[in-house]
Structures are given as structure tokens and as C-alpha cells.
């Protein structure tokens, strides 16, 4: 029963501990950069929690390991030991080691391995001693069959919640008891402060009781009373081995408990939601209930004079419903910071290993992503970051020779764009080497020659399956894993990866991810009989053009001039094959939108107005459609497609290339 009840908290324990380890790592790295010494407290607290939880939930090895780390942190906290690079390094490795232990715990495997044992030894050695064994032999007490206990509480004892009556009751449970109260120090009634203890007791306790057992009754009040425990009759000394044996048994029981709890490995997915989010939802539900009851009164007696009130009520209802919907959707959304967190460490270790000087610049950690997307974006990002440090950024001397600062910059940034989340991994390195890529692609048989290929097309080659293989990647970029895998992982999430590279200036990898389950703000545009939702954030402007403003170009394309540049026209009715749509430019409307850094004009019949759209996945319900990111249901019950601007732009450039 106890085991079953414990197992249900294992997953929560794992999650909070891994989060704690992330915090430890972040704080350690900040310390490394000369951060505030107060960070030690944060680190200590995380270690302390893990230690306590590990012991409680039956992971003694983990608890023992954390104990050493915690002791070291304690010394740092008290200033008994300086915080230096080797110590931080050691603690960072401990964080890794604990992560490994958690992974094994979740998989139901034995926690300790040689590396963990060795590291535990290192931690202890850093404190100038051997690793302690948590199993402590309790000092065994004398035995007697009768005791005299003299107990006089200090006046303040009861105020701390230690009631003498409770202590007496506990003693009574140990044996036959004769109590004498000493009232000599009891003040007169008018002088007596009722919260203070002024009575002392002499207790004769008869029973086969150890001194320690009696002392145990008073363990919380040791400092708050005068206590003496004297034997009335002494008996033979006790068997000494008893206590350690019990402790060993405890460890064994704990292990059995863990092994007998398969629930630990059966990973159940959960989301930790901030109380604020829940509170705001509760508030909204409250508002909804009020509005609903307000509307309810119109059911019975409605006359036209109350129309304004009814309308007001409906408006409120709409607002609250929308807000509640957003909040509920928001539960699945988590900040990308939890993924970004691992990069300071990665960048630090990797650049040190390669002898490069890299500064990591992170932005938009608070950008929220759907939990599912978040969990799967980590690996592709790690790959891109490694790739940027390994291949993108140059060695310091090379940078100097090229007239750049020695320190390379790696920028990691997340932000919203349209109905999407954009994550960029940018470096200010050498950029893609066109010749090398072409040579390699030829060698791999992907192309016959690079002649006539645009830079974009060459850059695209790195995403081709078979472009990178184990033979050409260094061990740092991940053996045999190429950009094709990154692209596949991202497109599994319904996203896309592109690269922009400038020779000598660096490369930018752009991952565009969908906000599954998101609500987007859009403009509803009419095209023939249908409506399309254009995400508001992609819209630059909408303009009405005269037919003369359009220039036809060879190959059937159309361009128009907008703020000094020529933009291609995408006629939505053509893309989606809508019947009965406006064809004459001056009868319709041109919506200037921006996607993937490119501006185009979307030609539609007209606008129906702004609208919030709950994105329903087309893929889940139908299949992926080029140029469409999802569908939504309009107020009248009809379905409108949500235009995927980036997709349309790609479609357009492909048509141009063809």
C-alpha cells in the first residue's frame, strides 16, 4: 500500500527534480561568469530538495550522491570554501551525473554506476574527506527496567506548541508511571502568564525501556527544558549490532519498494501550470457564471426596452468565452526557455573543447510553445547549435585575420511571427562555403555540377539526405546525423527549416514552428464564394490598385510597385481555384504580406473584417495542403481556410524558379 501510494509521486518528483537540475546548471554557469554569490543559495536549495525527495521516494543512491554535493554547496554558501572554476566544473558534472541517475530511475534501472561512484568520491575529496555513508549507527542507550525522569520545562516551552501534557502521555505509553508535580515555582494567579510553563515533574517510569527511547520523547524540547534520566535499576549492557542492521534493512526495503513499483517507468505526461494561469481561469469562469445568470433573467421577462442590456450581456459573454478559451489553450503552452536553458552549458563546453571563443546571445526565452512541440524541438536545436560552433564559427586567429572580433557570437532567438513561432540560430561566422558544398554534393552524387545553381539552391543541398555522413561530420556535430534529419524532425512538427548565409558574415538557420491549438488573430478575406483567414501579423498593409499598376513579366508572373520595390502578386483564387472571384485588379484588394522575409501581394475580392480564429489542424482531419496552415470555423458555421503565408511565398518562389 505504502509503495503504491509513493509511486504515484515519482513522476512529479522526477519532473520537479529535472527542473531543479536545470536551475542549478543555469545558476552554476552564471556563477562561472562572475554572477552574484547569492546564486549559491538557489543551487543549494535545488540540491537540498532533490536529496530530500530522493530519500523519501526510495532512491538512496541518489540521495547519498546529492548529500555530498549539498555538503560542498553548504561550504560554499558559508564562505568556508571559495567558489572557483574547478568547483563549478565539479558541480556541473554532478548535475550531469544526477540527470543520468534520473534517466535510469525513470527507466527502472539501477541508479549507481561507476562514474557516479567515482564522482561522489571526487566531491568528498574536494572537501578533504572520504565519501560518507549515510547509514549511521544510532548510539544505543542504556537499558534499565525503571527510570527516574526529572523534567522541568522552561517557561517558553508551551509557546512552541510543545504541550507538557502531550509529553506525559508519550511517556505513559512506555510503561507504568508515577508522576509528582513540583508546584514551588508556580506564580500566583494574578502574576501567571497562561502561556508559560512553571511546573516541574518527577516521573518514576517502570518498564523495559532504553534511555534513548525516553530521551526521544523529549527530542524536540531538549533546549527548552531541564531533563535528567536516571536508572532506578541497571540491567546487562545491550547487544550493539542491532541498530546498524536495521539501517541496512531500510536501504534494502527502499530498493525493493522501488523495484516493485513499475509505475516509475510508465511515464505519464503532465503539464505543470502556474497558479496564476489557473487563477485567471477560475476568475473567468466566475465572470461567465455572473454573465450567464444576468442573461438568464431575460428568459422569463423580456421586453424590447431591455434590448440594450441583452446586447451588453451577449458582448460580455463573447468576451469572457474568448478569454477563457485562450486561457485553456494556454495551459499547454510553455516557455521555450526550458529548452534554451541547456545551451549556455553546451556552448561553454563545446567552445572550450574546440578552442573557440563564443558568446551566446539568447532572446525570447519567454516565447511560449505547445508542450508537444517544445519536447521535440530540443534535439534539432542542439544539432543546429553544435553545427554553428563546429562549422560556422571560425577559430579566433582566423577571425582576427578576417578583421573580425575574436569572439564569435551565436544568437538563439525565439519570437512570434504570424500563427507561428520562429526560432533562429544565427552565427557571425564564415558563412556557407559554396565551393565546398558543391564539391561534396558532386562527390555524393547529389548533383552533377554546381553550374547555374543559385546560392539558395546550393544552400538547400545541405538539407539533402546523404549530404552529410559519419565520414565527414566531426564527432561534435553528431555522428552520421545530418541536416536532413533536422529538417525531417522539424517538418514532423509541421514546421520548416531554412538557411540564409552570407559569405564572411555568417549563417542564420530559421525554424518556423506552428502553434498547434493556437488561436490566431486574422483578417477574413473574401475570395469568390469562400472566406480565407490571413494571419494579422503577416499583414503589412492592404491597398487598392489600378490595373495599370500591375506589370506582367515573362513567364506569366505579375508584379506591382510597393514602397519602392516590386512585389509579386499571388492571386488567391488562382492558388486555391475559387470560382466566381474578382479578376480585375481594381475591383479587388491587394493585401501586402510578409513571410520568410519576403513580401508578396495577395489578391483577394475584399475584406470581411478582423476575426479570431481557432486553428484546427487540416493534417489531423484531412491532409496537409500547400499554402494552408489550418482551418477554422466561422460564426455562421462555415469553414474558412487559414492562409499559410510562408508556404505561399515558397510556392511562389518555386514557381518563379521553375
Amino acid at each position, binding site marked *: 500500500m505504502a509503495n503504491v501510494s*509513493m509511486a504515484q509521486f515519482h513522476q512529479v518528483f522526477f519532473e520537479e527534480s529535472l527542473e531543479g537540475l536545470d536551475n542549478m546548471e543555469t545558476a552554476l554557469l552564471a556563477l562561472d561568469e562572475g554572477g552574484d554569490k547569492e546564486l549559491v543559495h538557489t543551487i543549494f*536549495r535545488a540540491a537540498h530538495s532533490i536529496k530530500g*525527495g530522493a530519500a523519501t*521516494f526510495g532512491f538512496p543512491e541518489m540521495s547519498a550522491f546529492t548529500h555530498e554535493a549539498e*555538503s560542498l554547496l553548504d561550504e560554499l554558501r558559508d564562505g568556508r570554501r571559495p567558489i572557483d572554476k574547478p568547483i563549478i566544473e565539479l558541480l556541473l558534472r554532478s548535475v550531469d551525473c544526477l540527470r543520468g541517475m534520473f534517466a535510469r530511475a525513470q527507466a527502472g534501472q539501477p541508479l549507481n554506476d561507476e562514474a557516479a561512484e567515482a564522482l561522489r568520491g571526487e566531491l568528498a575529496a574536494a572537501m578533504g574527506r572520504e565519501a560518507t555513508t549515510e547509514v549511521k549507527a544510532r548510539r544505543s542507550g542504556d537499558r534499565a527496567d525503571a527510570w527516574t525522569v526529572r523534567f522541568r520545562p522552561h517557561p517558553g516551552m508551551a*509557546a*512552541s*506548541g*510543545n504541550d507538557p501534557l502531550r509529553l506525559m502521555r508519550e511517556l505513559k505509553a512506555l510503561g507504568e508511571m508515577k508522576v509528582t508535580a513540583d508546584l514551588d515555582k508556580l506564580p500566583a494567579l494574578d502574576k501567571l502568564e497562561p*502561556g508559560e510553563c512553571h511546573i516541574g515533574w518527577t516521573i518514576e517510569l517502570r518498564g523495559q525501556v532504553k534511555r534513548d527511547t525516553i530521551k526521544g520523547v523529549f527530542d524536540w524540547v531538549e533546549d527548552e527544558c531541564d531533563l535528567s534520566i536516571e536508572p532506578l535499576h541497571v540491567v546487562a549492557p545491550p547487544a550493539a549490532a542491532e541498530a546498524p542492521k536495521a539501517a541496512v534493512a531500510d536501504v534494502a526495503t527502499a530498493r525493493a519498494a522501488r523495484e516493485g513499483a513499475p509505475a516509475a517507468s510508465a511515464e505519464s505526461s503532465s503539464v505543470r501550470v502556474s497558479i496564476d494561469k489557473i487563477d485567471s481561469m477560475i476568475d473567468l469562469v466566475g465572470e461567465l457564471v455572473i454573465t450567464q445568470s444576468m442573461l438568464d433573467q431575460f428568459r422569463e421577462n423580456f421586453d424590447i426596452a431591455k434590448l440594450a442590456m441583452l446586447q451588453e450581456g451577449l458582448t460580455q459573454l463573447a468576451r469572457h468565452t474568448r478569454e477563457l478559451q485562450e486561457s485553456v489553450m494556454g495551459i499547454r503552452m510553455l516557455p521555450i526557455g526550458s529548452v534554451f536553458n541547456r545551451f549556455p552549458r553546451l556552448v561553454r563546453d563545446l567552445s572550450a573543447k574546440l578552442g573557440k571563443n563564443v558568446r551566446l546571445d539568447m532572446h525570447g526565452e519567454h516565447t511560449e510553445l505547445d508542450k508537444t512541440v517544445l519536447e521535440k524541438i530540443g534535439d534539432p536545436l542542439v544539432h543546429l547549435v553544435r553545427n554553428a560552433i563546429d562549422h560556422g564559427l571560425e577559430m579566433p586567429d582566423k577571425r582576427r585575420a578576417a578583421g573580425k572580433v575574436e569572439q564569435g557570437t551565436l544568437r538563439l532567438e525565439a519570437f512570434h511571427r504570424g500563427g507561428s513561432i520562429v526560432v533562429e540560430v544565427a552565427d557571425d561566422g564564415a558563412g556557407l562555403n559554396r565551393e565546398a558544398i558543391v564539391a561534396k554534393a558532386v562527390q555524393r552524387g547529389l548533383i552533377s555540377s554546381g553550374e547555374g545553381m543559385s546560392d539558395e539552391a546550393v544552400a538547400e543541398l545541405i538539407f539533402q539526405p546523404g549530404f552529410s555522413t559519419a565520414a565527414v561530420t566531426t564527432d561534435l556535430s553528431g555522428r552520421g546525423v545530418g541536416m536532413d534529419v533536422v529538417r525531417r524532425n522539424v517538418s514532423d512538427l509541421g514546421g520548416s527549416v531554412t538557411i540564409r548565409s552570407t559569405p564572411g558574415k555568417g549563417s542564420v538557420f530559421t525554424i518556423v514552428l506552428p502553434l498547434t491549438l493556437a488561436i490566431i488573430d486574422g483578417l477574413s478575406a473574401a475570395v469568390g464564394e469562400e472566406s480565407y483567414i490571413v494571419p494579422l501579423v503577416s499583414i503589412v498593409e492592404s491597398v487598392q490598385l489600378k490595373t495599370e499598376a500591375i506589370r506582367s513579366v515573362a513567364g506569366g508572373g505579375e508584379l506591382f510597385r510597393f514602397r519602392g520595390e516590386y512585389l509579386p502578386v499571388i492571386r488567391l483564387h488562382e492558388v486555391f481555384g475559387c470560382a466566381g472571384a474578382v479578376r480585375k485588379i481594381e475591383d479587388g484588394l491587394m493585401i501586402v504580406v510578409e513571410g520568410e522575409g519576403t513580401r508578396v501581394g495577395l489578391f483577394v475580392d475584399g475584406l470581411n473584417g478582423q476575426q479570431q480564429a481557432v486553428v484546427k489542424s487540416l493534417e489531423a482531419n484531412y491532409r496537409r495542403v500547400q499554402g494552408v496552415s489550418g482551418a477554422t470555423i466561422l460564426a455562421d458555421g462555415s469553414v474558412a481556410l487559414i492562409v499559410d503565408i510562408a508556404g505561399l511565398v515558397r510556392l511562389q518562389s518555386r514557381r518563379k524558379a521553375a
Partner: protein
Amino acid sequence: MAKILAVDDSASMRGMVAFTLRGAGHEVSEAENGQLALDQAKGGKYDLVLADVNMPVMDGISMVRELRTLPEYKGVPILMLTTESHTDKKMEGKAAGATGWLVKPFDPEQLLATVNRVLG
């Protein structure tokens, strides 16, 4: 059955404590730091408060100190959930007005035994 307030920033620890005590028929409220616990304690009188020592926002020791200034928490048992390696914390907790402590790790049986001990 008693009204108990369980305070710990670790959701698993809090969950375990609450689950065990509820199983024994107690009415348990939870708080994830000292400040929230204090607000909650002011709202309704608890028969027993169990509090972790190390917590963000307000630690357990400051919480006990604050709690003891409230007349309705005079003499009400407050137990610190602490680890053996920190005897000084136990003493600090006591000095702040804690009744006693429960040493982590503890299992549900130990928890119940201690709770029954203070509830009498």
C-alpha cells in the same frame, strides 16, 4: 480529524504528505511557500502546520516566526520537515517557534506516527 496545512515547494513531497494525511482522514490544505502558507493560515485555523525549511519567497523558518505572532497560532503545533544533516536548521526552527521536526526522508507511517504524536 484535524485540519492540517502542508507547506513545501516540492509538489511531490507536498503531494505525498497530503495524500498520506488525507488517507488517515485529516483535512489537508497545501501551500508551496511560506508566504502563501501564511496567507492561508490567517484565513482559517489549522490544528497543525507541517513546513519545509528551504523554500523560495519565504522560507519555513521565517514562516514559523510570522505564524507565532498570530494569537490564534499560540501553542498550535508546527513541525519542520528537515534533513538530518542540518541540526542548526532544527535549532533555528525551534528558536523561531517550531514545535519540532520530522526528519526527511520519512515514509507515510513515520509521518502519521509523528502527526498523531503532536495531535495527541
